[in-house]
């Protein structure tokens, strides 16, 4: 759950009184934009990407204008622009107009959790406005601090002094930056990044730090972010419809994590356990529709609901339903298999029989009861299956599932369909 840009970031900064550049949303009228240009002399136009998208400036996705005509042109160019990073491409939905902040100094600042220091850290440099990874280490200061007491003024001043930052920026930053800890700590953030903070001359020439971009990530397991009353559409692009449906079942009893691997995949694998999830998804590659972890001993009702959602979204296109996990330590196999088998029966009832091959690899408490329940259900539905014990290597079972998938593509699906409709 990530949030970028000042449109919402500016609102969050207001909670702790941290100054941010003046920003108008996509709904801004021509007169509003004109007034913004007049007030600041220059306006930045940035596309709105939901979720976390960085490096916009690098890819030419920031407009910089001084008149309304150019502003409207840039608005048109960037309103629905796309941004590609690695394998994912996102489309913007609107633009923001941000008043330029004249400044002689740009500062980078972030708070995040560090697995190196195993505590919260502040990262700061007065060489901001660029990608932090591009700076040499001696120009950046990473400061771990005690989360029980939080980020303190001395952390900031010590760091800036060690960096030999210009004296005039130290005091305003020492005064303002510790407030960001409140935002970070009180609203369930795992990352908060302001880059750049521009040091704008204020009254009497004293510099004022003004946030000119905003990025943060929230912890899905911390409900504190809900207190911010952010509209749900901000995070909508983070989750597909399928993932959102599953997420509604997110409780502490049992895992229910899913991620779409390939929406054209042909093997749907409800996976049990984080390790099994990592390994099975790795081997299946793009054959997999989803990656999932349903371990943690989910109760019947939750597993049944999860299965209903998974089947509804993915079974129609699948050749193989692949239920896989190691030898469970605590997950009740009878309960989870009964829940899945009942959901499968329900699916066939609602959507009609589907030509699939079911492959299972599992171990754990109540194993045989669970396997036999599943076997009986599959028999009744007329679905071919292979059910392997936990003494079969999980990776071999995955390989078998992939071979069956190939056969299904070649002829199996057709043969099973003919059998089901006979």
């Amino acid at each position, binding site marked *: 759950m990530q949030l970028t840009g000042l449109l919402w970031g500016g609102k969050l900064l207001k909670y702790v009184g941290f100054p941010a550049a003046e920003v108008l949303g996509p709904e801004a009228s021509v007169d509003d934009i004109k007034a913004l240009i007049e007030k600041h002399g220059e306006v930045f136009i940035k596309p709105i990407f939901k979720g976390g998208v960085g490096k916009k400036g690098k890819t030419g996705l920031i407009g910089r204008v001084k008149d309304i005509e150019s502003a409207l042109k840039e608005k048109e160019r960037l309103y629905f622009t796309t941004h590609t990073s690695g394998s994912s491409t996102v489309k913007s939905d609107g633009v923001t107009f941000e008043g330029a902040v004249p400044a002689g100094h740009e500062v980078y600042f972030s708070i995040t959790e560090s*697995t190196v220091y195993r505590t919260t850290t502040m990262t700061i440099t007065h060489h901001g406005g660029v990608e932090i990874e591009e700076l040499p280490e001696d120009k950046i200061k990473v400061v771990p601090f005690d989360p029980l007491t939080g980020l303190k003024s001395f952390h900031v001043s010590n760091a800036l002094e060690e960096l030999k930052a210009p004296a005039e920026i130290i005091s305003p930053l020492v005064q303002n930056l510790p407030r960001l800890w409140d935002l970070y700590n009180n609203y369930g953030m795992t990352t908060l990044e302001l880059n750049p903070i521009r040091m704008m001359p204020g009254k009497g020439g004293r510099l004022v730090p003004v946030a000119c971009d905003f990025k943060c990530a929230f912890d*899905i397991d911390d409900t504190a972010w809900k207190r911010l009353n952010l509209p749900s559409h901000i995070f909508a692009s983070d989750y597909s419809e399928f993932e959102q449906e599953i997420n509604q079942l997110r409780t502490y009893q049992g895992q229910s994590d899913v991620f779409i691997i390939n929406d054209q995949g042909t093997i749907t694998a409800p996976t049990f356990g984080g390790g099994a999830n*990592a390994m099975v998804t790795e081997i299946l590659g793009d054959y997999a529709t989803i990656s999932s972890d349903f371990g943690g001993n989910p109760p019947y009702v939750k597993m049944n609901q999860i299965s209903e959602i998974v089947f509804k979204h993915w079974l129609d296109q699948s050749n193989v339903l692949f239920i896989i996990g190691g030898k469970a330590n605590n997950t009740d196999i009878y309960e989870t298999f009964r829940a899945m088998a009942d959901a499968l029966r329900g699916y066939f009832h609602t959507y009609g029989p589907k030509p699939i091959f079911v492959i299972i690899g599992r171990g754990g408490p109540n194993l045989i009861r669970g396997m036999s329940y599943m076997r009986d259900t599959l028999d009744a539905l007329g679905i071919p299956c292979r059910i392997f*014990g936990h003494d079969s290597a999980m*990776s071999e079972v995955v390989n078998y599932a992939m071979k069956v998938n190939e056969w299904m593509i070649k002829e199996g699906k057709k043969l099973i369909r003919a059998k089901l409709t006979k």
Partner: protein
Amino acid sequence: MHKQGVEKFPYYVGIRSLSEVATREDRVCVLNILGTESSSVTPVSHEFSGGNVVFGTGPGKSGQILETKLGSIPVYNSVKEGMNAGHKINTAVIYLPPAGVKDGVAEVVRDNPDLKKVVILTEKVSVKDSRTIRAICQTNGVDVFGANCLGVADAWNQVRIGGALGGSKPQESLVKGSVAIYSNSGNFTTTIAVYLITSGWGTTTSISSGKDVYIHFAPGEFFYVLDNDERSRAAVIYVEPGGYYEHGLEINKPTVACIVGRWKARLTKACGHAGSLAGSGDDAAAKEKWFMDYFDVDDIYTPENPVFSKKGAVVTNIAYIPEALTRVMEANGIESDFEPQGDLSLKCWFANNQGLSLPPELDIPVVEAVTPYNEQIEKVNRQIGAQFPREALKDASGASMMDPKTQVTKVHNVSILDASKYSLEENLVFSLTKEHPDEYRRGLANIAFNSYVNLHGDSILTASDASREGGNSPNTVLSSAISIIGKGRVKRAIDAASVLLDLFQYQKIMDSTADFDYKEVLQETIRSSDKDKLLVPERDGFAEKMVRAIDELDRKSIFIEFCKDLARKEERFLSADTILAATWLTIGWSSLMRKKISRTTILSLPWYSMIFSAHIGCSVPSEWHSKTSFCGEDLDDFIENRSFTETAFLALIGHRPAEVELFEFTVLLGLIISNGPGTISAQGSKGAVSADGPEQPERVQLNKAFVGFLTHTGFAHGGNGYEAIEFLLERFKDNGLKDPGDPNHGIDLKGIAAKYSQWYLNYKNREKAAGNLEYRKIPCVGHPVFKGKAVNIDPREEFVSKLLEERDSYNIFLDFYRHLVQALFETGATRNVFCVNVDAVIAVILLKAVWNLYREGELTEKDIENAAFTTFLFGRMIGCAAEIDDHINRGRNMDTRTPASKCSFVG
């Protein structure tokens, strides 16, 4: 700020050797000990560890206990209360919900200065709470394992602390050896241990670290304590992407590192382990490189490319761990701990090809599972028939459902449109066995049904006659009759079926007509009480008549032939009950073996059969039943040669159906099988089952369930089909129509339709002008779903019409309806061309069947109304049988009632 522990670390680490991670001396307190997971896991841990759990907590649960085989564990409201009771602990296990974990840790740290270790099982602990927990424990000198882990275990010490490492049988996985395990995955901790056994390696200490963002006891600490543990000669570490915990390690003992999750570089949010969300520097590829550098190897180990050094090997598949470890240890001159046990090849425990021929490489055979699973599998394989989970079935059904879009109901997943292509007897069999019968079994069903249609001399007829004479509707008349077919009447048949089932259930017969040698069964010691249930001392002419008819069929039933041979062997005779039982066992066997139906259902089939027969038999008065005939037809011929559909037609119309008539009648019955579980008739039958208590299925009175169906039909539900007939009679009774099936009838349908439409338009306008919006609607025209287009079509009517057209079956009444909807539009009575709905199809088929009798004065309008209603009952009997059987098998006692809170008073 942290307490000083092991000097090497810039933070607190208290444990110096792996052997200290889980010891027999540790004394444990479990927070939320009575929670669902803890209460099942803790006793096993406690017993395995020799009783290491001193007490548990649960707010408000002081005084309660958790039973274990080593005695009960006391429960207190709080840690403080437990400490005040004199208990001493050094380890806390946290099973609290995520929001309570931080406070739980704070509580146990504050109230117990002797605390050294905390094991947190809980998943989804927030990052904020994790960092706070770390800060608290660092300040107070406490080692933390987890969160989101499965705890720690030691095979040497026979101790496990925290979660369920090794499940309910930890001794199976935690076998003493020389390898230490550290795993980000709880499940893989013991899966790796089990895999290692196949190469002869046992374990020392196993640590499930969890894979949240915060890992408190990380690989750095693990390799440090490994060095100080003399028992451990090697290590296996399973890690996933995300975090720098594996960076800069100092590894001094042979180690196999398994790194899985290259694909996780694609993740934009956590899936599975929360801490597996990696950046560019800590992804799986980076971690592979770190470990390759530690081991001085330049590639990943695979069986095909076994790259390893004395220091170790890197694998990306846990299945390669045993082999890689063995190779590394060989390089160090170290032999395995014990002889390899088992292997990791594919072992299929259950399989079904569903009759398909799979390629040999995929057709993996079933092998015997390892003990104790093989014994368990044998036990479950001896269970026959389906076992359905029970649930409240109010307004729900496992038998039928209506698609709100198409308005087509499906019964056992077959649409009523498709079902209408099957005969009455086929659909009746289908309703209970969930399979339409083949020709042989259809023949058997006809014999079974027709044998019990004639009820000459039976008190049932007296009851139905009396009811009929009392002026009751057809459903009420049938209710009186069906009430009498209680369990007592069919007990002998059910007993016989039960004996046969017991004798044959484990013979692995899938097809009841297969070539099966039952000699051994015949020679088995069959209890004399069971023989008495199958055989009678005196010749039974009725039974012989049935057997004669069955012998005429082209195949042989194992069960019927067995009964015949048994009778010969015992020099006794078969009863009709036994033949009925063997017949239905033959029909339902494959459904039972394929677990489509339950044992309860197959044993009830003779009862259902008699009830179905009585529905038809009692629909005509007693004078139509005689010793030798039914409805004037010879009884022997009847049993041997007629289908049950023909019988139903005969009872309804009074003559044998011609081929076209039979076809149309079949379609008609098929269309009215079901309208889903919400219909009143279905609700009536389900309510009757629910009231008897399906959780004890033997107590449910099937006949009463059918009475429930019958009494929940009436002039408005079932009897309303007559409205359309009445409408058509008005249009056609005086125009000299001779044969409704003749397309050259010479009647001006368009003209009649136009004339009526004009009249209807005037009538409608008149009524509307007078403020009456409840004006009479034309029956069977229009539908609330199939509307709004320029020309509307009810797909069900379209389907049946096509079916009739394919058979060159013309129906003037249906033709008229088509003209009528067009004329209504043309005259402006309707705003578009309304559909002719499926109810019209039902009416026109029936009217066509009775037209001549009506024209000749043999049937009155009242008779036709009764016939329409009775036809509905015959068809709906099929669907309700499915509902009744479904509710018996799946429903709960009294599950159809409505809670008082949901009822309203409208007085």
